[in-house]
């Protein structure tokens, strides 16, 4: 049925949108074990370190950062969904210290069930967000499928000696997070009709925000270790970073900035399934402090869509680094943890 007259609410078509729709990290790890890793000295970053993107050296001055990401709707409006999906895809290049250059659209769209204006709305949102990032979309591919899904495959440039990876965390570093948490919780609450309009607008603003300024500041400070926080949650991505770097990461969860009423929604039991799957994945490598607040713990595992950067900065530099972030328009930047020598648990979670 073609619903031409009605406003299309994309959010009614999915049970888990955005990065919450990611496959469980435990299952993914099981599958990837059987995937052969190509051997080539020009492959500078591959999947071994669970990084945000692959990096391939072209010459001594240039390497390509390659990444793709797509997901089902996270909001009702097609244009906004396009913006958020594009910001999320491009973020992986920023997290690696790269500059996004060109991209391809990846679209799954049910042409018999939705008006084509929805299709063009999503693409316009993606295109405008890519332009904001200085990225040119030069093609794409569409498959007929329901519910719709959208994202980009992005190619960026990075100097081979200035790549920022999951493996760059060093004992003594402080961890800085550049966006507040809670998009998974707020979106789940929105589907149930229990979130405020203000919180929804806040969440969408957070998801649309490019990680560009954060990436610029990282480059200026010569940062070596960072990742962006998406489907595996703050704790899940911190764990991947700790494993890749052979260190222990401690997160002080009471320092996390939240979007609106995220904490009280969790307290009511509004905890999306993705948070439990992320917890399942991380449990065996994590020390939970005995007095750890349960709501904070689940917030740390909430799947984020287009989340912030988690940046390793040498201890002592935090104030200067955060001041620079704020000067560049990153409104929510705070120290949320620290890196130490490996102590038997890759991840330590405390209040």
């Amino acid at each position, binding site marked *: 049925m073609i619903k031409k007259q009605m406003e299309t609410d994309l959010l009614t078509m999915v049970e888990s949108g955005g990065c919450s729709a990611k496959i469980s990290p435990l299952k993914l790890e099981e599958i990837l074990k059987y995937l052969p890793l190509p051997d080539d000295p020009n492959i500078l970053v591959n999947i071994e370190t669970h990084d945000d993107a692959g990096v391939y050296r072209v010459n001594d001055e240039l390497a390509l950062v390659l990444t793709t990401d797509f997901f089902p709707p996270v909001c009702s409006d097609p244009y906004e969904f396009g913006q958020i999906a594009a910001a999320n895809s491009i973020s992986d290049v920023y997290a690696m210290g790269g500059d996004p250059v060109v991209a391809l659209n990846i679209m799954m769209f049910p042409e018999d069930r939705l008006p084509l204006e929805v299709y063009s709305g999503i693409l316009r949102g993606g295109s405008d967000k890519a332009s904001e990032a200085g990225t040119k979309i030069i093609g794409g591919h569409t498959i007929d499928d329901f519910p719709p899904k959208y994202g980009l495959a992005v190619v960026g440039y990075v100097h081979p000696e200035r790549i920022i990876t999951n493996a760059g965390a060093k004992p003594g570093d402080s961890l800085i997070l550049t966006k507040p948490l809670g998009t998974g919780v707020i979106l*789940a609450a929105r*589907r149930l009709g229990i979130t405020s309009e203000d919180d929804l607008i806040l969440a969408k603003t957070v998801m649309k925000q490019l990680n560009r300024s954060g990436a610029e500041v990282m480059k200026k400070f010569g940062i070596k270790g960072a990742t962006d926080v998406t489907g595996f949650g703050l704790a899940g991505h911190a764990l991947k970073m700790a494993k890749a770097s052979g260190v222990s990461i401690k997160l002080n969860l009471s320092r996390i900035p939240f979007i609106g009423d995220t904490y009280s929604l969790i307290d*009511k039991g509004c*905890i999306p399934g993705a948070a439990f799957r992320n917890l399942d994945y991380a449990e065996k490598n994590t020390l939970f402090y005995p007095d750890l*607040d*349960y*709501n904070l713990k689940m917030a740390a595992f909430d799947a984020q869509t287009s989340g912030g950067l988690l940046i390793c900065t040498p201890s002592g530099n935090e104030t200067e680094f955060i001041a620079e972030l704020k000067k560049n328009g990153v409104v929510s930047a705070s120290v949320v943890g620290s890196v130490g020598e490996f102590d038997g648990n890759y991840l330590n979670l405390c209040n």
Partner: protein
Amino acid sequence: MHILDTRGQQCPAPLIATRKALRESPDGTAFRILTGSRNALNNISKFLTDNKIIYSVQEEPDFWTITVNKGNDNESAAK
């Protein structure tokens, strides 16, 4: 016994109902949650296990019944 029928509800509504019932039920009592969603079953089970709350699951032809025993030392769930 108090029964929460969450069949047909989208996640995480069944978990919200569970947490509310845990807070409101008197200590030492039990209640039941009915759900037709495997995701909801998994999430509620994980939540209860994580909070050291005793429960049991019975599989019916097209739904599950989770019986939750709110003991006298289940304060952690209410935190």
